[in-house]
C-alpha cells in the first residue's frame, strides 16, 4: 500500500472541501485522495466542520409552495436504491506505459477524455525530460479569480516524465504549481518525493527536481501561471517547451 509523506496543506484541503478550489487543482487533490487514507480522514473531518457550519447557518425564506412541490416530486422517481447506485463509475482499467501504471482515478479521467494510450499524447522531449499536456476539457477559472492582465494564464494540466537521474530544468513559478508523483520519485533541495506525494508550491519556489536513479519518474503537474526557467539551459529550453 502507498503511504505518501507529502500531503496537501490543510488550507488547500479546506478550499477543496468547500468547493472553492479551482477545478484544475481539485483534480490533483482528488487523485492524491485516491491514494492517501490519511488525507481522506482529513477530508472527512473538514466535511464535518462544513456540516456543522451549514447546520448553524442562516436561513433564507422559501417561496410559498416550494415544499409541497418537492414533496410531490418524491413520488416521481421510484427505485431509490437503483438510482443511488446508477451513478457509480465502472471499474476502470488503469492506463499503463511499460512499468508505469497510472492511478485508477487519473486513468478514469483520461479514458473519459478519450486517452487510451499514454504514448498517443503529444510528448515534447528534451534529453531525459519530457512533458505532455493532458487533453482535458478546459478548466476555466472563476472569472473573479483572475487578476487583471493574466487572462492568458489558464491552468495547465501536464504529465512530466524524467528518465532515471534526469533533472528538470531549474524554474520558478509565477502562479501556483501542484505536483503529484505518479511513478518513481524525485528529489529537490527541499526534500525527497515518492509515489502519491503531493507538492503544492507557491510562486516563490525555485527548484530543480532530479529523478531517482532506479527508474523513470512520472508526475502530474498542474500550474495556474507560466513557469520561469532560471537555469543556464533554461534560456534555450524556454521557447522549445513553450512554458
Amino acid at each position: 500500500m502507498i503511504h505518501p509523506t507529502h500531503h496537501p496543506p490543510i488550507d488547500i484541503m479546506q478550499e477543496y472541501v468547500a468547493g472553492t478550489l479551482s477545478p484544475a487543482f481539485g483534480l490533483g487533490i482528488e487523485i492524491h485522495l485516491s491514494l492517501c487514507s490519511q488525507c481522506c480522514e482529513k477530508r472527512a473531518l473538514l466535511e464535518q466542520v462544513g456540516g456543522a457550519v451549514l447546520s448553524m447557518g442562516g436561513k433564507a425564506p422559501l417561496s410559498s409552495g416550494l415544499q409541497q412541490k418537492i414533496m410531490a416530486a418524491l413520488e416521481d422517481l421510484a427505485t431509490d436504491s437503483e438510482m443511488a447506485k446508477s451513478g457509480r463509475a465502472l471499474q476502470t482499467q488503469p492506463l499503463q506505459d511499460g512499468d508505469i501504471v497510472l492511478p485508477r482515478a487519473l486513468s478514469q479521467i483520461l479514458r473519459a477524455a478519450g486517452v487510451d494510450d499514454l504514448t498517443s499524447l503529444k510528448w515534447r522531449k528534451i534529453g531525459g525530460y519530457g512533458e505532455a499536456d493532458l487533453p482535458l476539457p478546459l478548466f476555466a477559472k472563476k472569472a473573479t479569480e483572475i487578476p487583471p492582465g493574466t487572462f492568458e494564464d489558464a491552468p495547465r494540466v501536464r504529465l512530466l516524465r524524467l528518465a532515471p537521474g534526469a533533472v528538470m530544468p531549474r524554474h520558478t513559478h509565477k502562479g501556483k504549481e501542484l505536483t503529484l508523483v505518479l511513478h518513481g520519485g524525485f528529489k529537490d533541495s527541499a526534500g525527497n518525493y515518492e509515489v502519491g506525494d503531493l507538492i503544492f508550491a507557491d510562486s516563490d519556489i525555485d527548484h530543480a527536481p532530479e529523478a531517482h536513479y532506479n527508474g523513470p519518474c512520472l508526475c502530474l503537474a498542474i500550474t495556474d501561471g507560466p513557469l520561469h526557467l532560471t537555469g543556464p539551459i533554461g534560456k534555450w529550453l524556454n521557447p522549445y517547451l513553450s512554458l
Partner: protein
Amino acid sequence: MIAPMVPCVADKTSVPIIAQFQPARDKSLLALSARPLHIIAMERTDSPSLDALMLRIRDHRDRTAFAALFEQMAPRLKAYLMGKGGGAQMAEDVLQNVMLKIWHRAVTFNPEKASATTWIFTIARNARVDMLRKTIKPVLDPEEPDLQPNPEPGAEDIVDLAQASEQLCHAITTLPDEQKEILNLAYFSDLSHGEIAAKTGLALGTVKSRLRLALGKLRKDLR
C-alpha cells in the same frame, strides 16, 4: 442588527455569533455587509436530531420525517446556495435537486461514516459546485469504492459522529469572532482564501492562519 441567537447545544445561553458584521468595526467588511445577513448567521435549531430523521427516511421512506428535515434544513440550504453567488431562483432550483437527492440517495446514508449534517453538506456542496462550474468537471464519483485507498489499521474507530457534530457546533460557538468570520466565509461563501483576503482587506496569510487556528481548535487532527 443583532440576529437572534440560538445556541448549538441544549443549554440556552446566548453565544456571540459570527453573524454580526459591524461595518463600523471593520471598514473592510463593508462590502460583505451588502450580502444578505442570513448568509452569515450562526444559529442552530436543536431538535429533532437530523440523524434520527435521516434514518427514518432511509429505513422507512418516512415522508413525515422528510418534511421535518425539510423544515429544518431547506431554508439553510437555500441560504447556503445563495451564498455561493446564484440568485434566489437558481438557489431554489438547486435546492429542489438537493432535497430530492437526500430522499433518493438516503440508502447511502451511513451514520457511522458521516453524520447527517456532514452527509447533507457534501450533497449540497457538490450541487453548488455543479451549478457554478461552467466547464465539464472531472467525473470522479467520490463514493466509488474502487477509488478509495484502503483505510489505515485503526482508522475504523467507532465514534458517535452525531454526538461529535454536536460538540463541533458547540466548539464553533466558542471560537473568537475573527476566526468564526473566516470559518464561515471559507465554507459558506463562494470565495477562495485569496478572494476572502481581497474582500476583507486582510492579508492572505492572516486569512489562512485564522482558518488554521480555527480548524485546529475544532479538530486536533486538523492542526
